């Protein structure tokens, strides 16, 4: 895990009720499909001082943001429209954040069904059974590839990756993210840029 934080973060961490007044948002800096940076940033209004934590993250298998099911997340601002701890979808499970649909840069093609997630079961566990790639087991760096979503690593019985999903989840809730779970339209946003 890479952590990029301002020095003031330490002081903020010491405040037990720091999350009550924080205002947070995500950023995603696109570098490569399997080595980009997801950050959670927050402030304590009215102070403009900005704090952040960052993690390695992946998105897509191609830098062509207009290719559905292949390209990384299109650039721009997103609304986050839901957060679940035990999401039980067919392809995405566990701790997830649901993002709005987005026109890509061609102005025509819409990317849909976008999430921030990892590879884990709905109960936040790991299902590692096969020789190569299980969809709900984080085995290797290639798991950073996605069909378009942002993906974070987590530990598994077969690989020693950092608990970036868990840390992002905790940071989100402690520093400005909503405590509620489920679908909701809230002020938390994601900014995707190069």
């Amino acid at each position, binding site marked *: 895990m890479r952590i990029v934080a301002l020095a003031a973060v330490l002081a903020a961490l010491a405040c037990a009720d720091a999350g009550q007044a924080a205002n947070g948002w995500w950023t995603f800096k696109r570098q490569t499909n399997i080595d980009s940076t997801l950050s959670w940033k927050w402030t304590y209004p009215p102070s403009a001082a900005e704090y952040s934590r960052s993690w390695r993250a992946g998105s897509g298998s191609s830098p062509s943001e207009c290719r*559905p099911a292949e390209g990384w997340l299109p650039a721009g601002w997103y609304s986050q429209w839901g957060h679940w701890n035990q999401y039980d979808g067919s392809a995405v499970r566990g701790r997830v954040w649901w993002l709005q649909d*987005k026109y890509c840069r061609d102005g025509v093609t819409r990317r849909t*069904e976008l999430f921030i997630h990892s590879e884990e079961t709905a109960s936040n566990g790991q299902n590692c059974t096969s020789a190569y790639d299980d969809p709900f087991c984080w085995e290797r760096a290639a798991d950073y590839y996605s069909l378009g979503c942002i993906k974070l690593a987590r530990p598994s019985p077969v690989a020693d990756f950092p608990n970036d999903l868990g840390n992002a989840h905790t940071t989100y809730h402690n520093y400005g993210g909503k405590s509620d779970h489920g679908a909701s339209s809230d002020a938390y946003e994601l900014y995707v840029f190069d």
Partner: protein
Amino acid sequence: MAPKPLLLSTVALALIAAACGSAPETAERSAARPRGIYAVGEHVFGLDGKPAVELAAAPVAPLAGWLTPAGAPSPDGRYLAYNAWKELRRDDPALSWDDQGIEPGDPLATPSIRLYELASGNDAVLQDGAFSLAWRADGALAYFKGAERDYRAGVPYVGDVFVRPGPDAPPERWSPERGRYVVVGWAGRTLIGYREREGEALDVVAFDEPGRMRILAPDAGLVAISPDGRRVFVEQGPAQGRPNLRVLEIANAAVVARLDLTRVDPGVGTVNYAGDWRGDRVVASSASGLALFRVSSRAIRLERAIRVQGPGLSEPRFADAGRHVVAWASSRHGGVLVDCEETTADCDRFRPLTDAAGVHGFPVWRRNLYNPSRPLQEG
């Protein structure tokens, strides 16, 4: 509606050609216009007996991208069926929905499938609230229709797959349950398409008859249907493990050939969906441009990789008896058509003028139109 005369500005756009990649700029070699059928905004070129026609709307399928053609000519050449998209409110991609005041459930757009009749020039909505279509050899038309007409913010656009025996016949539901489907093409009497899940996960599926759907290839993309309509060529990218290609029997989903893409020219990298299969050859877009494969009864062999600089290519089609490949790429100014000669790997590029205006809020958009169903004789 009578067909409108071709705009001079459109002619000018179509004649703008430049060399692509490392190919020399040989103006005398450049084709007068791209091969095959293609759209420039709402104008369509290359239809039989028509130098150009102007449609009522630009053929685009925002909810499908190029998983499926934006439009397809009917097997008898009488019609062009195409996807259209009517925005109900502006959605600026630079801004979040919250910042634009878009609330959950707000109607954003209406997709529709339109039918253009070449002889009369009549251009009418065949089905509102629908997108993605496929013509069968006998003229039956399949499409996906949403449970609701409008695409709404934060509401997955679920619906069903329908088939009409002919454009005027009543539709019959073929999907066994509601879902997110994209129709691609017919393989004989079997309809091939996608079922989409969270995270844009795609399963290649087959609809054999009303109410009967099978998964042919989970977590995969469809490159092409074989000329005889018995097999499909599918790809899997690195998000599903080791990138690979497979040929499957449609009847039973058995894998008859497989190629591990990590064991061929690394320039190929990955292979993308929406390619073409003619004879024993398959063309697909790849990470570096185009990849051509030979398919035998038990094997897939990389025949050639054509490197094409610039943005990734989409929907490559064989043209000119397989001597050329025509594809397109997405740029900030719209689609750019690329015509590559297979033996020399030289590519001509047909791009819109940088200051050209789009139509209906869309950029100038160039994209080839085709019918991926097999067996089928294309125009």
